[in-house]
C-alpha cells in the first residue's frame, strides 16, 4: 500500500538528504519527515544503505544493537549505538543480541555521537507526531486542554486554602496573580487586594528613602514616639511600621506584649497565628471585611477555645510558644509577610483604626493561646526541654520589640512613603544589603539609648492614637529625609532608578 507507493520516492528523498544536503538522517527524523512508522523508517534506511553500497556511493551508517551482556554481577541489558565498522565487535561482545537496526545514515564520518542527538533535537519537540508514529501508544497520555488545567489549578488553590488557615498566607508566594485571586475567592477586600498588589511594587522603589529617614531620624523619632505613645494608633503604628523595616517583626509580637499586659483570655480568632506568617495575622485584623476568613477563623477558634479551656498549662505554653514563635518570626523575614503587611497596615490605619487595635489584641491573644500542643505522651516524656526554652523566649522578644518599635515609629511617620517601606521589605532577605544596614543601625541606637527604649516599650501599651498625631511627626521626618537621601543614599537611589528604567 503506502509502502510500495513510497518505494521509489523515499530512496530519492534519502539520496537527496544524505548526499546533497549532507544531513544526518536518523530513523526518527525520517519517520517524521515522511510520516511513516518508525519501524518502517528503519527498514527504509536499511534498503537505502544496501542501494548505496551497490551503487558504490559509500555512506556511513550507525546501527543500534540491543542485547544482553554478561558481567561479573550478572547480565546487563545493553542498548548500544555502534558505528558500522564497530558493529561486529559490539555484537560479539554481547551474549545475546535481541535486535539490530539502522540508527542513522550520514555522508560524513562522525567523530562523536553529538550530531546524532542534535539532528533529532527539533524532531523531538513534536511530541504528537512522535507518539503517533511510535510502536507504543498510551491511551491515558492525552494532553489536558487549558480549561482542564485552569480547573485543576482552582481546585488546588481551594485545597490549600481549606487545609490550613495559615496556608493562605503562603499563597502570595506563588505569584502576584494568586493573592488577587485568593482575595476574590474570599469575597472580601478584593479592592484592597488589587490595591495592595501594585503597592508592593511601588513600595519597592521607595523603600530606600524610608530607610534613610529611619536612619537619620532617630532623635526625632524618639521625641515623636514619646508624644504618640499614649494613643492606640501609636501602638498600631508601631506594630505596622515595625513590620515594615524589620520585615520579620509582626504585629502579633506587639499583640503579644499587649496580651502579657492585658491578660485577657478571650480567644476569638484562629490558632494559626502562631504558625501563620504576618499576612495572615493582618488578615485577621480585617476580619470585618474578610468574611470567609472569619468563618474559618471562628471555626478554628471554637476548636481552640475548647482546647485552651481544657488545659491551663496549654495556655501558658501557648503564650510562651507564641512568644517563641514571634521571636523566630522576627528573625525570619519572608516575602509574603512583607508584601501584605504594609498594605494591610495602611488599610487598617486609614479605614479601621479601632478595629485594628482590637483585632491585634485578638490576634495577640490567639497567638498566646495557640498551642498546637504536642500530644500528651511525648510532652510527658520530655518535660525538661520545654520548660527550659520557655523562659528564654519571653525576655528575648522584648528587646526585639523595643528595637522594632523604634524603627517602626520612625518609618511610620512617613505616611506617604510607605511604599518605600515595602520596597525594603520586599527585598526579602534578611541578609539584604539595605535591610542589613537598617537593622544594624537600629541595634546601635538601642544600645546607646536604653532609656528611650524602655519608654517606648511602655508607650505602645497605651490606647489607640488618632491619625493626626502621626501626621505631625511625618512632615518633620520628611524634611530631613531628602537631606539624608542626598548624602548617604544617593548610590542606592541610583540603583533603584536603574531598576525603574
Amino acid at each position: 500500500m503506502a509502502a510500495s507507493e513510497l518505494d521509489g520516492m523515499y530512496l530519492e528523498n534519502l539520496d537527496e538528504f544524505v548526499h546533497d544536503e549532507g544531513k544526518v538522517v536518523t530513523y526518527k527524523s525520517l519517520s517524521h519527515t515522511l510520516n511513516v512508522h518508525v519501524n518502517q523508517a528503519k527498514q527504509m534506511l536499511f534498503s537505502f544503505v544496501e542501494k548505496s553500497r551497490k551503487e558504490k556511493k559509500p555512506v556511513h551508517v550507525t546501527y543500534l544493537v540491543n542485547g544482553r551482556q554478561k558481567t561479573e554481577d550478572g547480565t546487563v541489558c545493553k542498548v548500544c549505538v555502534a558505528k558500522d565498522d564497530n558493529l561486529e565487535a559490539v555484537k560479539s561482545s554481547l551474549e545475546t543480541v535481541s535486535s539490530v537496526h539502522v540508527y542513522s545514515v550520514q555522508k560524513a564520518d562522525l567523530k562523536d555521537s553529538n550530531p546524532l542527538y542534535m539532528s533529532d533535537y527539533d524532531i523531538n519537540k513534536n511530541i504528537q507526531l512522535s507518539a503517533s508514529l511510535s510502536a507504543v501508544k498510551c491511551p491515558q497520555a492525552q494532553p489536558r486542554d487549558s480549561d482542564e488545567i485552569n480547573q485543576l489549578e482552582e481546585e488546588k488553590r481551594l485545597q490549600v486554602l481549606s487545609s490550613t488557615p495559615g496556608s493562605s498566607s503562603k499563597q502570595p508566594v506563588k505569584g502576584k496573580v494568586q493573592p488577587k485571586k485568593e482575595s476574590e475567592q474570599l469575597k472580601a477586600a478584593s479592592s484592597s487586594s488589587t490595591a495592595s498588589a501594585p503597592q508592593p511594587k511601588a513600595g519597592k522603589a521607595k523603600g530606600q528613602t524610608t530607610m534613610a529617614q529611619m536612619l537619620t531620624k532617630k532623635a526625632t523619632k524618639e521625641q515623636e514616639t514619646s508624644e504618640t505613645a499614649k494613643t492606640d494608633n501609636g501602638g498600631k503604628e508601631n506594630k505596622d511600621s515595625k513590620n515594615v523595616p524589620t520585615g520579620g517583626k509582626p504585629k502579633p509580637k506587639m499583640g503579644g506584649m499587649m496580651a502579657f499586659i492585658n491578660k485577657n483570655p478571650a480567644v476569638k480568632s484562629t490558632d494559626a497565628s502562631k504558625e501563620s506568617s504576618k499576612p495572615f495575622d493582618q488578615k485577621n485584623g480585617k476580619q470585618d471585611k474578610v468574611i470567609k476568613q472569619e468563618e474559618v477563623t471562628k471555626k478554628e477558634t471554637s476548636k481552640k477555645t475548647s482546647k485552651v479551656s481544657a488545659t491551663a498549662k496549654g495556655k501558658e505554653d501557648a503564650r510562651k510558644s507564641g512568644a517563641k514563635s514571634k521571636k523566630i518570626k522576627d528573625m525570619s523575614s519572608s516575602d509574603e509577610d512583607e508584601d501584605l503587611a504594609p498594605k494591610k497596615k495602611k488599610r487598617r490605619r486609614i479605614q479601621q483604626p479601632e478595629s485594628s487595635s482590637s483585632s491585634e489584641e485578638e490576634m495577640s491573644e490567639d497567638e498566646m493561646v495557640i498551642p498546637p500542643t504536642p500530644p500528651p505522651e511525648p510532652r510527658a516524656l520530655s518535660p525538661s526541654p520545654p520548660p527550659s526554652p520557655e523562659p528564654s523566649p519571653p525576655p528575648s522578644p522584648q528587646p526585639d520589640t523595643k528595637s522594632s518599635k523604634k524603627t517602626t515609629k520612625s518609618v511610620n511617620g512617613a505616611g506617604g512613603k510607605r511604599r518605600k517601606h515595602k520596597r525594603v521589605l520586599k527585598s526579602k532577605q534578611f541578609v539584604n544589603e539595605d535591610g542589613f544596614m537598617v537593622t544594624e543601625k537600629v541595634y546601635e541606637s538601642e544600645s546607646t539609648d536604653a532609656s528611650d527604649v524602655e519608654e517606648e516599650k511602655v508607650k505602645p501599651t497605651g490606647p489607640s492614637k488618632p491619625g493626626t498625631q502621626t501626621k505631625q511627626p511625618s512632615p518633620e521626618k520628611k524634611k530631613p529625609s531628602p537631606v539624608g537621601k542626598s548624602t548617604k543614599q544617593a548610590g542606592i537611589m541610583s540603583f533603584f532608578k536603574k531598576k525603574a528604567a
Partner: protein
Amino acid sequence: MFSKDPNEEGTLLQEPTTEDMVQFERAQCSYENLSERFMLKQRNFGRQYAHIYAVRLWVMKARLVKAAKRKWGDDVCIRKLSEMETGETCVVIGTLFKHMELKPSILKDISEEEGAMPQPPRAKYTEDADNLILEDEVQRVSLEGKLDVQTSVTGTIVAVYGAEDESGRFQVKDFCYADLPAQNSVQTPEEDRFVVLVSGLGIGSNQDNLLELQLLVDLVTGQLGDVGDQKSAANIVRVIVAGNSLSESTQDKDSLTKAKYLSRKTAAGSVEAMKVLDDFLVQLSSCVDVDVMPGDFDPANHVLPQQPLHRCMFPRAMKYPTMHTVPNPYEASVGDVRFLGTSGQNVDDIYKYSSLENSLEILEKTLTVGHVAPTAPDTLGSYPFHDSDPFILESCPHVYFVGNQAKFQSKTLEGDSGQRALLVTVPKFSQTQSCVLVNLRTLQCEVLQVQAAWEEGEQPMQE
C-alpha cells in the same frame, strides 16, 4: 529484550514492509500514591527538634517491647533508666546517640577560641574514640559491649539487654531493633510488568549524556529497537526518576554571598537545565506514567521531606496527566507492589557518620532499624515535626530503593514473618548511563545500560 523471550530474527534489516507497523498499547497497572505523610501542610520552623525524638521513641517503643519479649522471653523486665538498679539485668529501650568528636558542630565553628578554624568537610567523620549513649525519656547512660559503635548511628531506637556496672556504664549483652513491620501480600501480575528506576540524570553539567538519555527515552517510548523490544517496552508501566535530575553544577552557591546588584541579569544555571529536563519529561509522559522526585541538587527545599517539584517548572510536561511530581521520600503502590525510596540523602548521611561502606548495607540497616532516615534531624536536615515522625516504617515495602548511588546493587531481604523486600541501589545515570528495571511479576530487577560505542574497535564498556 528484557523480557527474556526468545526472539525471532530481527526484521528491521530488510526492505520496508507494512507488517512491522505495529502499535502496542502501554500496559496499565493500578497505582496509589501513599506519600501523603511526607507532604508538609504547614511550614512552622519555630519548633524544637526534640519533639521528633520524643515521638519517635514513643511510637517505636511499643514495637520494641514486642521484639524484646520475643527475643529474650516474655518475662524479661523492661526498665526505664531512672528505675534501673546497678547490677540488675534488664532491657532498656531508648534512642542511640553517638558521640563523635569530629562531627561538625556549629558551636565549635563559631567559637572564639584562638586558632579555631572551621572544620573542612570530610568523607567520613568517624573516629575510634566515638562512643554510644542511650537516651530514654529522661536519662542517658553510656553503652559498652556488644553494640558496635562504628556501625551504629544517632537516632536509631534500640532495645539493649544487659546490666549497669558500678562505674555507671551499661554493659550490653545483647540488643535488638524493632521487627520489620507487616507487609501486605501482593498479587503479582500475570505478565511481566516493569517499573524503570532511574536517578542522577545530571542535566546541566558540562558532560551531558544527552544522547544516552535520549536513547533511554526512545526505548521506553517504543521507538527504538526491534518489534520484540518494542513489545517489552510496552510492558513498562511506570518510570520513577529518583532525584538529582539536575546536576550539581547548576547549583550556584555564590548566589548567597554575591551582591544582588551584580547578579541581576544572570540567570540561574538551573533554568536552562530545567528546560532540557522538561523536554525529556514531556517525551516520556506522552507515553508512560512518570514520577519525578526531587534530589539534593534539584530546585526544591533542602530539608527532608523534600516537597514535590513545582508544576510551573514543567510547563510542557505537566499538560499530560501522566506526569507526576512526588516528594522525597516517596511511597507508592504500583500494581499492589509497594515501592518506598529516597533520592539518596539518607544513605549518604549514614555513610558519613558510620563505618559502613556499602550502600546496600546501609539501605539494609535502615530497613532493619525500622526508620528511613535515623540521622535526621541530627546531621541530616529535617522538618521539625512534632506529632508524628513520617520516616518511621509503617509497613514493609516490597521494593525499597535509594537513588544516586555509585553502582547498582540489589538484594532480597527476608523478614521473620515472611516479609520479602527487594533492596535496590539505583546508580547515577550521569556516571553509569544505566537504570534499573524492576519486574513486578518476579520482584527481580536488572540493569539496563545505554551506550554509544564510538571508537573503532571499542568494545562496549562492561560495568
